[in-house]
C-alpha cells in the first residue's frame, strides 16, 4: 500500500492553487510532475558537479563521467537490459524513434518493403516511419483498432509478410490507456525474423518493463513522463541491432578518429550519442527511477488499478459521457467524450475549477478518425493521484454539464 500523503508531499508542483482552486493534476499522460529528489538531484549537479564529460582528465569531469555512466546502469537495471551499452541517451521518445527510423532505414529498407504500425500510435511513432517510406518507396501498413480500443490481432497477423522489415507499436495507448499484447506481437514478428520497436512513452511509468523477457529489439521512452526532467530520454536497443545500425547524428563524443579523409566511429553506446550529453537530465532520470523503484512498481500498479476502476465506475454514471477504450486490459488512463458538450468547452471549465485534464486529439489523429471524434478529454492518473481527486473531477463535470446543457 502506498503512503499517498507522504508521496504527495514529495511533489512540490502538486500543492498549488489554480484559478483559486487546489490543483488536481490529471495531465500525466502529457508530462508527469517531479519529486523533490529529482529536482534536488539536478540542482545538486549544477551546484557541485557540473562538467563536460568523457574526455576530461580533471576531477569534476571524471566525477561527472562516473555519475553519468552510473545513471546508464540504473536505467539498464530498471528495464533489465543485458548490458549498459544497450542504453542510449536521447532527448526523448520522439528522438529515439527518429534515430531508429533513420538509421534502420538507411541500411535495411528498400523500395517495396513494408513497415507495420498501428492505428493507435502517437504521431511520433507514425510520421518518422511515413517519412522513411516516402524516401525509400516503402509502404506503411496499419494494424486496425477494434471498437473497445484494443488492437485487431487478426489484422496484425494478416499484415505480417516477408516484405515486412520492422514493426513499431506502442506499449500503452496514450489516448485510451489500452495495453497492447506486445509479447505476443513480438513473438509473432520474431517468428518471421522481423524486429519490433516498442514505444514505451506511456509504458514505463505504468508497468514493470523487462526488455529481455519481452525480447523486444528496441524500447524507447521519455524521462519527463517518468517523473524526470525534460530533455532526456532513452533508446534501448539490442546490442546486435545497435551494432548493425549506422550512426545517426555525428560530431563530438561519438567518433574515434577524424580526418578529412576518413572518420571512424566510437563504440556503443557512444556511437549514437553525438555532442555534449544532458548530464543533469541523465542524473535526474536516474534519481526518478530510484525513487519509484523504492516505492515499488507493483504497489504503484496496484494503486493505479484502483484509481482506474474507481474512475471508470464513477465516470460511467454520468449522463451522456462515453469512455473511449473499454478493453479491460488498461493502464490508469481514461479518455471520454460527452455526446452533447465539446471537449474544448468541458476542458476549459474544468480548468477553471482547478482540474488539469488534456483535451484534443492527443497527437493521435488517426485514432480520432477511427472513432469518428475530433478529440477526447483525457484523465491520466499517476500514482500520486487519489480517489478524492477523482470525486472532485466527477463533481466538477457535473458543474460543467449544468453550464452547457
Amino acid at each position, binding site marked *: 500500500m502506498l503512503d499517498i500523503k507522504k508521496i504527495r508531499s514529495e511533489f512540490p508542483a502538486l500543492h498549488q492553487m489554480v484559478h483559486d482552486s487546489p490543483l488536481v493534476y490529471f495531465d500525466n499522460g502529457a508530462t508527469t510532475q517531479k519529486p523533490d529528489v529529482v529536482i534536488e538531484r539536478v540542482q545538486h549537479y549544477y551546484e557541485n558537479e557540473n562538467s563536460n564529460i568523457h574526455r576530461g582528465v580533471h576531477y569534476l569531469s571524471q566525477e561527472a563521467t562516473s555519475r553519468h555512466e552510473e545513471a546508464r546502469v540504473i536505467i539498464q537495471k530498471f528495464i533489465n537490459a543485458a548490458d549498459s551499452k544497450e542504453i542510449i541517451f536521447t532527448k526523448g521518445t520522439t528522438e529515439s524513434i527518429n534515430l531508429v527510423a533513420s538509421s534502420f532505414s538507411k541500411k535495411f529498407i528498400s523500395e517495396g518493403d513494408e513497415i507495420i504500425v498501428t492505428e493507435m500510435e502517437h504521431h511520433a511513432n507514425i510520421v518518422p516511419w511515413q517519412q522513411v517510406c516516402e524516401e525509400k518507396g516503402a509502404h506503411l501498413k496499419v494494424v486496425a483498432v477494434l471498437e473497445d480500443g484494443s488492437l485487431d490481432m487478426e489484422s496484425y497477423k494478416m499484415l505480417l509478410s516477408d516484405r515486412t522489415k520492422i514493426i513499431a507499436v506502442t506499449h500503452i495507448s496514450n489516448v485510451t490507456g489500452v495495453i497492447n499484447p506486445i509479447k505476443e506481437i513480438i513473438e509473432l514478428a520474431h517468428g518471421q525474423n522481423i524486429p519490433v520497436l516498442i514505444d514505451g512513452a506511456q509504458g514505463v511509468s505504468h508497468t514493470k518493463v523487462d526488455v529481455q523477457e519481452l525480447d523486444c529489439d528496441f524500447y524507447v521512452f521519455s524521462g519527463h513522463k517518468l517523473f524526470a526532467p525534460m530533455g532526456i530520454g532513452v533508446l534501448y536497443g539490442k546490442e546486435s541491432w545497435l551494432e548493425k545500425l549506422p550512426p545517426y547524428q555525428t560530431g563530438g563524443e561519438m567518433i574515434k578518429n577524424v580526418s578529412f579523409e576518413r572518420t571512424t566511429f566510437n563504440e556503443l553506446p557512444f556511437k549514437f550519442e553525438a555532442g555534449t550529453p544532458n548530464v543533469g537530465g541523465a542524473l535526474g532520470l536516474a534519481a526518478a527511477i530510484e525513487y519509484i523503484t523504492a516505492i515499488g512498481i507493483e504497489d504503484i500498479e496496484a494503486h493505479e488499478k484502483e484509481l482506474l476502476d474507481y474512475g471508470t465506475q464513477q465516470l460511467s454514471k454520468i449522463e451522456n459521457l462515453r469512455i473511449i477504450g473499454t478493453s479491460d486490459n488498461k493502464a490508469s488512463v481514461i479518455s471520454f467524450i460527452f455526446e452533447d458538450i*465539446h471537449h*474544448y*468547452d468541458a476542458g*476549459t*471549465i474544468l480548468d*477553471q475549477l482547478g482540474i488539469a485534464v488534456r483535451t484534443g486529439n492527443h497527437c493521435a489523429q488517426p485514432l480520432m478518425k477511427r472513432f469518428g471524434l475530433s*478529440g477526447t478529454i483525457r484523465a491520466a492518473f499517476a500514482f500520486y493521484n487519489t480517489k478524492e481527486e477523482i470525486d472532485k473531477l466527477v463533481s466538477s463535470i457535473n458543474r460543467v454539464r449544468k453550464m452547457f446543457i
Partner: protein
Amino acid sequence: MSIESSAAEIVEEFEMFDTWLDKYNYIIELGQELEGLDSQFKEQKYLISGCQSQVWLTAEFNDGKVYFKADSDAIITKGIVYLLIRVLSGNTPTAIVDYDLSFLEKIGLKEHLSPTRSNGLNSMIKQIKLYALVYQTKEKQR
C-alpha cells in the same frame, strides 16, 4: 459604431460580472446566440487551423467594409469569435488591420483572451487580419 467604441462596450459589459463563472456563462450565452454558418461554409477552406476546436470564418467585402461570419463546434470558442466579429465586422480593411485588440486583455479572462498558441485566438485574429489585408491590397490596386 467605431471599433474602439464596440470594444469599450464589451469591456463595460464584462465589468458587470464579478466571477469567472459569470463571465463564462456570458460567453457561452453569446456563443449560443451567434448565428452559425450554413453547412456549405463548414469546409476545409474556411477552417482556421491551430485551434483545438474547429472554427470556420468567412468574410465579405461590401461598400468598402468587411463583414465577417463565423462558427465553431465549441460554444466557448463561438462566444469568443463572436466578440471579435462584433468589434471588427463592418469596418474598413485598414481599420481592421491596424486595430490591436488589446481590449481582450481588459475583459479579464487572460488565459482565453490573450493570444497564446493553444487556444487558437492567435489563429483567429491572424485570419481576420489576413482577410482585411487582402481587401486592403485589392482596393489599393484599383
